[in-house]
């Protein structure tokens, strides 16, 4: 019964090869097999957004996909934003400066949602930012500082 399938996945430009059970969720694969624990698992049914990653460049929920479905695809997780912890990505730097997080649980999902959004929409309004992150739940901040951070990030990413 327990079928195992070989997969090859690129995460943040690095190749990973594993054998996985088909029922292994992509989020769990990223955390447990690939060892990249920046991606968080919250609700496990696609509502909270904590597990958001980029799948072939587009933000998706990695908790409602199977790892086998990522075979041959390019993923990016929050670890891909910077290689050097002392030199943050402008998006991360903006969250640091504007206090865009408290506990930090939702932050990776919010960053991975905002990265492609701000690349495509370099000058968003506050309302557009609120709509862009509407699929990511935060239980600490009340969102105000996240919105401030996103607007600051837009500025920083333009000049970066």
């Amino acid at each position: 019964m327990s079928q195992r399938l070989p997969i090859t996945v690129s995460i943040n430009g690095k190749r990973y090869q594993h054998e996985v059970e088909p029922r292994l969720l992509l989020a769990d694969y990223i955390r447990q097999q690939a060892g990249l624990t920046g991606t968080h698992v919250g609700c496990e049914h696609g509502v909270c957004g904590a597990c958001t990653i980029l799948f072939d460049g587009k933000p998706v929920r990695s908790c409602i996909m199977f790892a086998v479905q990522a075979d041959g695809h390019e993923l990016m997780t929050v670890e891909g934003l910077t290689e050097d912890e002392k030199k943050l990505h402008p998006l991360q730097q903006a969250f640091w400066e504007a206090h865009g997080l408290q506990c930090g649980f939702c932050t990776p999902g919010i960053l991975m949602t905002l990265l492609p959004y701000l690349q495509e929409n370099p000058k968003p309004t506050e309302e557009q930012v609120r709509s862009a992150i509407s699929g990511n739940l935060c239980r600490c901040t009340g969102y105000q500082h996240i919105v401030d951070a996103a607007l600051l990030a837009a500025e920083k990413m333009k000049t970066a």
Partner: protein
Amino acid sequence: MKPAPFEYFAPETLEAALELKAQHGDEGKALAGGQSLIPAMNFRVAQPSILIDLNPISELRYIHKNGAMRIGAMTVQSYAEHDGLVAKHVPLLHEAIPNIAHAQIRNRGTIGGSIAHADPASELPVICMALDARMRAQNVNGERWIETKDFFAGLFATALQPDELLVEIEFPVAKANTGYAFMEIARRHGDYAMAGVAAVLTLDAKGDCETARLVYLNVGDGPAPAPQAAASLQGAKPSAAAFKQAARLATEKEMEPFGNLHASAAYQRRLCAVLTERALAKAFDRARFSQIQP
């Protein structure tokens, strides 16, 4: 929670997928975008023993216009959302798609998957019903076309046979002198809507209402049309009073909402009445605009 074990197939052609459906029938659950199925599997509400993943089948991802608009069942929702042909020729679909959950879900969810799932709270079945779309179903022996009114068969149920797959949805292109509007109300953007409506209004040469169509979301066991309300508009002068009368007929005579945690049945009726008036007014404006456009 985590999904129960299952056997996984990822056929690369439609032919191979249909062979698997022929072999496994209902046991072999088709996996489209998975944005409803996988959450249900995580909760173990769904425990299919075999999954047939349709994602590698690129021949089911397309949008083209060939008389009508033809959309491959595995076309991703966000792709259709930003497609110029859809915006121009099926404006009602274009207006409805951004209401489906969030962008992250629409990047994975498919047009055909949502329709075959037949959730009464989802937008696409309502759009199919409002436009008289047709579904192309296929099994190893061939294909058949199913009208929308025959396709939805109650809560999460469709006319698809165990060996069939939904492969294409055909939407008629926007008609002249016609306005379309879709509206819904959710507690928060991206949540399941408490109620919603699709309105289609066609004007005659005098500017009176020739025909109308009203279909509601999440107030029954499938997309819920209101034919009496629509008929009340036939031949009528479009006016706030006429729209109010249609809203009253639809919500008091034709609708049996169940009510749920977020909205009682009475509140759903109230929402539908308000949405009906707004959607008809908007559809009317758009129909008028289409008449003055060259």
